[in-house]
Structure formats: structure tokens, C-alpha cells
């Protein structure tokens, strides 16, 4: 069991109704954490998501560590 910090942006922030939360989880990878939270909050179906760990882009298969800061990144639409 580890504790990680999650920050939500854009459609996810609105869907969940909060900017950030602390989550305790048994999963190993960022992808598994996404699936766990998508099920818990019934995320809208989205493709081509990215993930950042500790303010850097990361892989979905990356192992999480105690205290990590996680951001799930929906498709961007700048400019």
C-alpha cells in the first residue's frame, strides 16, 4: 500500500469535482491506478491520455512510489 498525490485538470477536474486528492492504492503502475480511479469515478471514455509523474511525462507502465505526484493528461487543445 502506497500513498500518492493526484492533481486533476480540465474535464477530469470538472467530472470529479475536485482539483486534487491523496489516494492510497495497492496497484503497481500508473496505468493500473488510472483504471482503478476510472472505475471509482466513472470517468468519461477518453483515448490518447498521457500521464505525468512528479512533473515529468512518464510511461503508463511506470511503477509508482510512495509520495509520487500523479497527473492524468487528457488530449490537449492549446492556442
Amino acid at each position, binding site marked *: 500500500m502506497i500513498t500518492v498525490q493526484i492533481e486533476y485538470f480540465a474535464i477530469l477536474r470538472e467530472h470529479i469535482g475536485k482539483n486534487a486528492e491523496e489516494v492510497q492504492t495497492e496497484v503497481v503502475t500508473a496505468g493500473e491506478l488510472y483504471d482503478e480511479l476510472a472505475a471509482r469515478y466513472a470517468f468519461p471514455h477518453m483515448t490518447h491520455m498521457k500521464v505525468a509523474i512528479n512533473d515529468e511525462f512518464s510511461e503508463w507502465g511506470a511503477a509508482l512510489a510512495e509520495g509520487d505526484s500523479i497527473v492524468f493528461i487528457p488530449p*490537449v487543445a*492549446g492556442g
Partner: protein
Amino acid sequence: MNRFSFSHEDVSGEQIRRLVADETSGAYVAFEGWVRNHNEGQQVLRLEYEAFESLGTKEGERIIREAEQRFGISTVYCVHRLGKLEIGDLAVIVGVSTPHRGEAFEACRYIIDEVKHRVPVWKKEHYVNGDSGWVNCERCAAAAHQHDHGEH
């Protein structure tokens, strides 16, 4: 001022030109993205930009360093607006000065293309009919044909 930054206040083309101006550069190319009054058939009233600012600033700075490595650039700045914007407002600006004009065009285009694709910024449009929605990224449709993975 960082070469890539977010701004919660109005930005003018004149501000960027003043930052970029120098006596050795003969060519200046600026790209500005403006809020249009329509998008994909819907009448837009106003919109909001939101960013993952800490990572976005780092990614924007990386894009500018890449452009400097590829092209002969004198000075370059890029600013992306965040918060509430009205029709006609400047949403993003890239200003590049170079000794020769070909590289100013190429560097400016490289930066805006990469910023729109890689910097984590999201746009929520508010429509005349009362609806609103988060706009998807511009390469998603193309990317969907190229990748089977990445479903999350």
C-alpha cells in the same frame, strides 16, 4: 522573463515584439492565435484555457531549445494565455527574430505546431446556444488511425 510562459493577463503583440527586437536581426515573424467566433459549426461566445502549468512551462522551454538547435534564431518568446478569453482575444503568441527570414518562418511554425501538440493546455468553449465543452486535441483524429495502443 522565461522564453515560454503562461499569462493570466492580456498579452499584446507589441509586448512580444519589444522583447524580441535587437539590432542584429533583419527578420521578425510572429504567429498569433486569436479566439474565433465559431468552431466546428458552433457559434462561440467565449472560452477558458487551463494548463498543467509546472509541466507545461518545462515542455514549452524544451520546444524553444529544440527550435534554437534546428534554426539560426536571434531571440524568441512564446506566451500562452490562461483563464477566460473573449472573441478576438490573443490566445497564444510566438515571436521569433533571426538574421534571415526563411529561418524565422520555419522556427515560428515549428514552435507553434509543437506547443499545440505537446504543452498540456485545455480549452473549454462556451457556445451561443448555452452549451459548453472541452475541446479535444487537434491531432487526435489523425493519431487514432495510427495507434491501437494508448487507450486510457
